[in-house]
C-alpha cells in the first residue's frame, strides 16, 4: 500500500477517535466554539484528503457531514441528540470505509444513501421520524437475534463498532419508553456480555494499519496544537529495543557475577558503571512503552452515552487518574475487559432515572473510573452508584445453573457470593439483550486479566452501588523474582505473588505442620496455610514423598487468586531482577510454568506460575478453603478490621507496635558501621546514606539516652517518597495480626495510644511524629497532621 494512503489511514483513525470524544463533549456543552471548530476542521480535512486520494464515496459522506457542521458553526443549528447520533453514525461510516481501504484499497461498495439522506434532512432543519432510519452496519454482517421486549436495551449498532466487533442486524432503533420497566427488573448483578465478544477473535487492532506498524505517540495528550516534542515510533521498533535491553540486563547480571572473583579496581568500577547505566536504560526504555490509561478510557464516554441513550437512562462518566501509565501490551489486554465492565454497569448496574429519584438518588447515574499506582501495581477501579448486586440473587442463580450446591451457598460469605458471577456460564439477566446477558462475559474478563498476571475483586452494596477493582503488575518483561532451589533445579517466583518467607527448624517443622483431611497445613499467625511441596508437585524427586525431614523446612508463602498458600522448597536463594522469556508452544500446556529466564551464570531457570501450581495442587478451590476455615479455631473473621503489626522493644522493656505496611525492610547493622554526618547518625545502606533515628530518644518524653546494648543494632527501615529513614530499636519481636482498639489515647509525643497485644501493654508508635521531631526537614513544609495508622 502506498505510503501516503497508510499515513492517511493512521491519521484519520486517530482523528475519528477524537471526533467521537468531541461529539459527546459537544453534546454536553453545546456552545463550545472550540469543540465545534475542531470537529469541523477534522471533517473538512477528511473530505479534502479523501477527494485528493480519489475515494469518492468517502468524500461524499464527509461532504454532507461538513455541510451540517458548517451550518452549526454559523449558529443556524444547535447540536441536539439527533444531530449527534447522525454525526456519530457518519463517523462510524467513515471508520468502516477506512477499514475497507485498508483491506482492499478502496472504500467498498456499501450504499450510504440513507445516511446521506438523513444528514441532508437534518441539514434542511427537518426532524427525523422517531423510527430513525436504519443505521450503517459497522462490521462483518452477521445479524444477531435481538429481543424486542420493551425492557431490553437494543443497542444501536453504531456503538458496537466502537467498542467491540459486535455485529447487529440493521434495525430501527427502538428507544424503549420504559425506564421504569427496565428498573423493574430488580437490580441485577453485573453480568456477561454480548455473545460476539466470546466467540469472535477480537481484532483489537482493527483501527491499526497491519504489519504491526502501529504508530504510537510516545508521550503527551492528543488534541489540536500538540507541540513537536513528540515523535511517532513504530511499535515493532520499541519491542526490539525492549528485547535488546533485556539481553543487556542478562549480560549485566553475568558481569556482576564476576565482581566477587576479580578485585581489580578498574574492573569493579567499570562493572559498576555498566550496572548503573543498564538500570537507567532499562527504566527509560520501559517508559517508552508506557501509555496513559486515558488512551483506553477515551473511548468510553461515547460507549456510555450511546448505551445510556439506548437504555433510556442517564449516566455520566467521570475519570480520575487518566495519566496513570501502563505498558502497551497491558493496555491492549485490558481494553476489552474494561469496556465490558462499563457496559455492564450502565446496562445492569445503574437504574433508570425514575427509579433513582424514587430511591433518593440523583436522576443521573455516575460511573467513576479511577486509576493509580500502588505497591508496584496499577490499580483500576470502576464504581457505579447503581443498584448494587444482590448476593442472594446471585446465589440463587448459581444454584439454578448447577454451579454450586445449596450447602455451599449456605456457607458462603457475601463477598464470595459476589464472585460467583465470574464463573463460566453465569448470567442473571432476565432477558438476554444484545448488550449483555449471554452468560459468557465476566469469566472472560477475569481470565483476560489473570492472563496478564492481574487480579479482580468485586464489592457491592445493594441499593448503593458496585465497585470492581483490578490490579495489574506494572510490567511483564523484567520483573523482580525470588530464586529458590528444589530437587536440584532452580526456579524463579515472581515477587508480585510473594507474601513472606517462613523457615521452620526441624523440631518446629515436625510439631507445627499439621494434617487436615490428609493435607499438610501450617498455622501461620492463626491462619491455616495449605502447604504444597514443590518437589512432589513437579515430581522432582521422581515421586518420592517429601515427608517432613530432619532438615529445616523452607516455606515460601505465596498467593494465588487471593488465596495464600505455602510452597515448600529445599533452599531459598536470592531476589533478582529477571528477564521473562516465553516458553515455546510445546510447553504451553504445562500450567505450572509462566516462562523461563537466563540466570547470571548463563543457565536457564523456569519461572513458576503460582496460580497454575495452586490449581494443579487443588489448593485454591472454595471447598478446600472452606474446610480449612472450619478446622481453624479462630474461624473466619472479617479480616478488614485486623491489622498486621510489627512488635518491637524500645529502651528498657518498652513494647511498641507499628503497622507492618509502613515497614520497608528490617535490617541489622553493626555498631561500627554507624557514621556521622554533622550531628546526624547515618549508615551506608544499599548505595544510599540512611539517617538513623534512635526511637528511644523520641518517645515517652524522650531525651533519656539508653545504654547501648552490645551487638548489632536492629533497625526498621521506613521509606516515603523515595527517602528512607532507619528507626533504631532494641529488639524486633514479632509480627502479629490484631484488631486494634486503642485503650488509652496518647499522653505524649510520638505515640498514638496504647493497646494490649499478647497480654502486654503496647504503645502504637506515630512514626511520622517521631521522624519529624528527630529531623524536621524530612517533611518539608507539611503541617503536623497525625499519620493514619
Amino acid at each position, binding site marked *: 500500500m502506498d505510503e501516503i494512503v497508510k499515513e492517511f489511514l493512521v491519521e484519520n483513525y486517530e482523528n475519528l477517535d477524537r471526533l467521537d470524544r468531541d461529539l459527546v463533549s459537544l453534546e454536553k456543552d453545546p456552545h463550545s466554539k472550540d469543540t465545534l471548530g475542531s470537529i469541523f476542521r477534522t471533517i473538512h480535512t477528511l473530505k479534502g484528503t479523501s477527494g485528493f486520494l480519489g475515494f469518492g464515496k468517502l468524500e461524499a459522506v464527509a461532504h454532507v457531514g461538513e455541510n451540517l457542521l458548517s451550518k452549526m458553526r454559523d449558529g443556524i443549528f444547535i447540536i441536539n441528540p439527533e444531530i449527534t447520533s447522525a454525526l456519530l453514525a457518519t463517523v462510524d461510516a467513515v471508520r468502516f470505509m477506512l477499514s475497507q481501504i485498508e483491506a482492499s484499497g478502496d472504500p467498498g461498495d456499501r450504499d450510504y444513501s440513507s445516511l446521506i439522506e438523513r444528514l441532508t434532512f437534518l441539514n434542511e432543519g427537518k426532524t427525523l421520524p422517531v423510527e430513525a432510519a436504519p443505521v450503517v452496519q459497522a462490521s462483518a454482517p452477521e445479524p444477531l437475534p435481538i429481543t424486542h421486549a420493551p425492557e431490553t436495551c437494543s443497542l444501536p449498532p453504531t456503538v458496537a463498532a466502537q467498542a467491540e466487533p459486535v455485529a447487529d442486524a440493521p434495525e430501527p432503533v427502538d428507544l424503549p419508553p420504559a425506564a421504569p420497566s427496565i428498573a423493574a427488573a430488580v437490580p441485577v448483578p453485573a453480568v456477561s456480555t454480548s455473545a460476539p465478544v466470546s466467540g469472535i477473535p477480537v481484532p483489537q487492532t482493527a483501527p491499526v494499519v497491519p504489519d504491526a506498524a502501529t504508530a504510537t505517540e510516545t508521550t503527551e495528550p492528543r488534541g489540536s496544537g500538540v507541540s513537536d516534542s513528540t515523535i511517532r515510533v513504530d511499535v515493532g521498533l520499541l519491542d526490539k529495543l525492549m528485547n535488546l535491553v533485556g*539481553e543487556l540486563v*542478562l*549480560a549485566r547480571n553475568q558481569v556482576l557475577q564476576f565482581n566477587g572473583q576479580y578485585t581489580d579496581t578498574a574492573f569493579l568500577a567499570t562493572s559498576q558503571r555498566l550496572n548503573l547505566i543498564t538500570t537507567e536504560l532499562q527504566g527509560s526504555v520501559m517508559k517508552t512503552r508506557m501509555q496513559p490509561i486515558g488512551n483506553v478510557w477515551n473511548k468510553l464516554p461515547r460507549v456510555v452515552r450511546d448505551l445510556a441513550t439506548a437504555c433510556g437512562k442517564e449516566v455520566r462518566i467521570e475519570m480520575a487518574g487518566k495519566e496513570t501509565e501502563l505498558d502497551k501490551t497491558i493496555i491492549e489486554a485490558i481494553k476489552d475487559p474494561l469496556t465490558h465492565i462499563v457496559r455492564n454497569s450502565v446496562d445492569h448496574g445503574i437504574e433508570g432515572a425514575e427509579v433513582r429519584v424514587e430511591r433518593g438518588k440523583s436522576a443521573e447515574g455516575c460511573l467513576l473510573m479511577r486509576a493509580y499506582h500502588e505497591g508496584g501495581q496499577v490499580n483500576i477501579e470502576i464504581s457505579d452508584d447503581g443498584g448494587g448486586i444482590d448476593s442472594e440473587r446471585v446465589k440463587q442463580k448459581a444454584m439454578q445453573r448447577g454451579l454450586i450446591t445449596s450447602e455451599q451457598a449456605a456457607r458462603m460469605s457475601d463477598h464470595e457470593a459476589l464472585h460467583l458471577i465470574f464463573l463460566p456460564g453465569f448470567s442473571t439477566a432476565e432477558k438476554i439483550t444484545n448488550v449483555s446477558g449471554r452468560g459468557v462475559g465476566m469469566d472472560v474478563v477475569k481470565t483476560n486479566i489473570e492472563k496478564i498476571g492481574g487480579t479482580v475483586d468485586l464489592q457491592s452494596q445493594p441499593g448503593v452501588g458496585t465497585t470492581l477493582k483490578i490490579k495489574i503488575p506494572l510490567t511483564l518483561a523484567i520483573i523482580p523474582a525470588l530464586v529458590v532451589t528444589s*530437587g536440584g*533445579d532452580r526456579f524463579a517466583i515472581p515477587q508480585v505473588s510473594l507474601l513472606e518467607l517462613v523457615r521452620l527448624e526441624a523440631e518446629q517443622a515436625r510439631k507445627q505442620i499439621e494434617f487436615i483431611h490428609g493435607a499438610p497445613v501450617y498455622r501461620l499467625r492463626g491462619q491455616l496455610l495449605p502447604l504444597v511441596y514443590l518437589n512432589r508437585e*513437579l*515430581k*522432582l524427586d521422581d515421586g518420592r514423598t517429601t515427608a517432613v525431614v530432619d532438615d529445616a523446612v523452607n516455606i515460601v508463602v505465596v498467593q494465588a487468586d487471593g488465596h495464600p498458600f505455602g510452597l515448600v522448597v529445599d533452599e531459598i536463594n536470592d531476589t533478582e531482577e529477571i528477564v521473562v*522469556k516465553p*516458553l*515455546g*508452544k*510445546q*510447553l504451553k*500446556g*504445562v*500450567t*505450572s*510454568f509462566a516462562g*523461563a*529466564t*537466563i540466570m547470571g551464570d*548463563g*543457565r*536457564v*531457570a*523456569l519461572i513458576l506460575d503460582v496460580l497454575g501450581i495452586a490449581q*494443579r495442587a487443588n489448593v485454591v478451590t472454595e471447598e478446600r478453603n472452606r474446610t480449612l476455615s472450619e478446622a481453624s479455631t479462630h474461624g473466619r473473621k472479617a479480616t478488614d478490621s485486623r491489622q498486621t503489626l510489627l512488635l518491637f522493644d524500645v529502651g528498657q522493656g518498652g513494647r511498641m507496635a507499628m503497622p507492618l505496611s509502613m515497614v520497608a525492610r528490617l535490617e541489622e547493622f553493626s555498631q561500627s558501621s554507624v557514621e556521622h554526618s554533622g550531628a546526624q547518625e547515618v549508615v551506608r545502606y544499599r548505595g544510599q546514606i540512611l539517617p538513623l533515628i534512635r526511637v528511644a530518644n523520641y518517645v515517652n518524653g524522650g531525651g533519656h539516652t539508653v545504654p547501648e546494648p552490645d551487638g548489632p543494632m536492629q533497625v526498621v527501615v521506613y521509606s516515603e517518597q523515595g527517602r528512607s529513614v532507619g528507626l533504631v530499636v532494641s529488639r524486633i519481636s514479632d509480627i502479629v495480626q490484631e484488631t486494634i482498639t486503642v485503650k488509652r489515647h496518647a499522653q505524649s509525643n510520638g505515640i498514638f495510644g496504647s493497646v494490649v497485644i499478647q497480654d502486654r501493654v503496647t504503645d502504637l508508635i506515630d512514626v511520622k511524629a517521631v521522624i519529624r521531631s528527630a529531623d524536621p526537614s524530612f517533611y518539608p513544609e507539611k503541617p503536623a497532621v497525625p499519620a493514619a495508622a
Partner: protein
Amino acid sequence: MTDCKQFATFFLNGLFLGVEVLKVQEVIRYQEMTRVPIAPAMIRGLINLRGQIVTAIDLRRRLELPPRPEGQLPMNVVVRTDDGAVSLLVDEIGDVLEIPDDTYERTPETLTGVARELVRGVYKLKERLLLILDTERAVSLPAAFNRTAAKGN
C-alpha cells in the same frame, strides 16, 4: 541437468534423515540443558543459545525410537519454525548434501507409525534412503498426547 536441493543430514538410531538446509539455523554440539518437570517426555529441556531460550526436543522420543545408549551425548540441530528456533536432538551430524530432484519418492509403505507422519518423502541415494523430516510436525506435540494430557491435568 535436473534441479537439486540442499539438505542438512543427520543420523538417528541408524536412520538417515535430512532437513532443507535453509530451515537449519545452526548445528552445535551437546549443550547443557535445564530440564522441564512434568512436561511432555519428548521435551528434553531448555538451552541457552546466545541469550535465547530454545526448547530441545528429543527426536528419538518423538519418533518413538529406543533411547540413546548410555554415555552417548546428542548433537543439536537448531531449526527455524513458525514459533521460533527449536533444537532437535540427534545422534550424529552428517554432511550437507546436494540431491537431485529426480531421486525423490513418496514415503515407502515399509515406514510405519509415527515416522510415517513425520517424514515428508524420501530420496533414493546410492547406498541408502534419505528421509526428509517435516520440521513443523516434528516440533509439535503428538495429538494423542494432548488429549491424554488434558485428561490428566
